[in-house]
């Protein structure tokens, strides 16, 4: 039998395989050079970039929970200028697709970021993080209202030559509504889920365990929720869906593909095992060979309902 074909397509972009790394969990890729053959990955999504550099939240910023972790990094990043001047040179040479995750507090910020990054060589797509609060609209997250989500998508899309992936927040009543808004706004794909808002308290000090009080829950604990949302969204929109949330093993990745995800992103698992992303690429290949599956498209959406 031939080598199985793991390639997937999002918009006009072909990816070597469906395994990407999730924003904020893979640094700017260089951090993983000792552990992963970066060019074996489908792509990397870099840490969220804003217009201006951000310090992020004060520590403590992370706390472990049952089967997961909370983070309140607060979107610490070097800002778009330093990102372009300091990080892109390396990223252009890693031999895989680079997706830049962007975030802003206003439509204008998203637009400017989209514009700036479209001029930069070596970027395959933008992933728009819409979980951030809209400062102008009283801090309600862009990602919790379908109209606002559509507006951000349109703003980015109109100001960029790059394919636009919009990353959805799970902290909503009906994620398919948001996904449809984003699709209408011109997104080439949606990725989901971002973290679930959570909290932990130290009963000895009676204080929150995170200086920011609340943080984002990620890791295996959230996988069932993420998988359900990916399945719902895959049925609700026509654009490709990228599944994220607790993916740690090959089996986890396959669950998301079967539920209808065209690709997946490995997040917190990179912290637990820095080789996780590459091991999942290899694992999917093995699964396909063992089950005599030639193309990954035969797996995607392959869930059997009786």
């Amino acid at each position, binding site marked *: 039998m031939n080598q199985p074909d793991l390639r997937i397509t999002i918009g006009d972009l072909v990816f070597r395989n469906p395994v990407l790394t999730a924003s904020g969990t893979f640094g700017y890729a260089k951090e993983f050079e000792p552990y992963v053959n970066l060019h074996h990955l489908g792509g990397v999504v870099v840490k969220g970039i804003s217009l201006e550099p951000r310090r992020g939240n004060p520590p403590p910023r992370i*706390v472990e929970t049952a089967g997961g972790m909370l983070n309140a990094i607060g979107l610490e990043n070097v800002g778009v200028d330093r990102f372009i001047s300091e990080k892109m040179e390396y990223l252009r040479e890693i031999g895989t697709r680079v997706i830049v995750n962007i975030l802003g507090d206003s439509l204008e910020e998203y637009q400017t970021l989209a514009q700036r990054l479209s001029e930069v060589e070596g970027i395959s797509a933008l992933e728009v993080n819409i979980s951030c609060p809209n400062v102008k609209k009283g801090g309600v997250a862009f990602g919790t209202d379908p109209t606002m989500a559509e507006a951000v998508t349109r703003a980015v899309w109109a100001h960029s030559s790059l394919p636009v992936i919009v990353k959805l927040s799970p902290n909503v009543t009906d994620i398919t509504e948001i996904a449809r808004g984003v699709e209408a706004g011109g997104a080439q794909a949606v990725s989901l889920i971002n973290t679930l808002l959570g909290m932990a308290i130290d009963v000895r000090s009676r204080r929150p365990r995170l200086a920011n009080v609340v943080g984002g829950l990620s890791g295996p604990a959230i996988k069932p929720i993420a998988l359900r949302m990916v399945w719902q969204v895959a049925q609700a929109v026509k654009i490709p869906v990228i599944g994220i949330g607790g993916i740690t093993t090959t089996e986890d990745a396959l669950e998301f593909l079967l539920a209808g995800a065209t690709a997946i992103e490995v997040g917190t698992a990179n912290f637990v095992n820095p080789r996780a992303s590459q091991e999942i690429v290899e694992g999917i290949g093995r699964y396909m060979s063992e089950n005599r599956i030639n193309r990954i498209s035969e797996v995607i959406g392959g869930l059997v309902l009786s």
Partner: protein
Amino acid sequence: MNQFEEQAKIVRQEQLTPEIYRLTLKAPDIASNARPGQFVMAQTTTSYDPLLRRPLSIHQTIGNEQVQLMYKIVGKGTRMLSALTPGKTIQLTGPLGHGFDLAGKDAICLVGGGMGIAPLYFLAREILRTNKPPKCTVLLGARTAAELGPLPRDFMDIGVTEIFLATDDGTLGHHGFVAELLPKHLAPENKWTVCTCGPHPMMKAVVSQCRKQGDECQVSLETMMACGISACLGCAVPRSDLSGPYLHVCKDGPVFKADEVAWL
């Protein structure tokens, strides 16, 4: 970067006190690249609870083959680690972070408290090996004698001659805090470099005493860590001026010049 991911086989698991263990692992890549003050991220279980690996300092390397860790049981992760037996394998990432900077230092004083003593042993060995003549004073503190276990002996066995102890309860050595030993044992005619690792209040006291004496001080910090490899940005600590970007313990540290970081 000289960082490695190794399937490390457990060679020995020794219980030193009711709560303190010494774990010897076969991890040649890490062993042959480690410097005193660096650490590893150690898998404690294949379960998802606890989920994250645990940061542990390198207690010493043995030849170019083995890495030794010394740890105290304080929660789930360390308890699970202590249940692992020789022959079993755990994943180990390392060596991580920046260790102590000994370049051009001649009079060095190591001040350790509790489990903070673990990396200082590796450091003492390195000083005795490279500094000619070695000038290495070791001050160790703990709440009570039993907590020190075999550590004072271990330092003597490798040839440390100047070693002084302090316990909070007076069961061994000076009755009080280890920082109180500094003015007595650091001869002012020398230009000392103090290397310290231990509980935050202890290090704070050491730093403050060093400032008074005009001695240089290097501190090894601990924070919560998700990744240990500069990917999560979870291990932030504020700079001494409390402004600008945070420092990250796993990458910029764990060893810092005392003046780089804020002492809140």
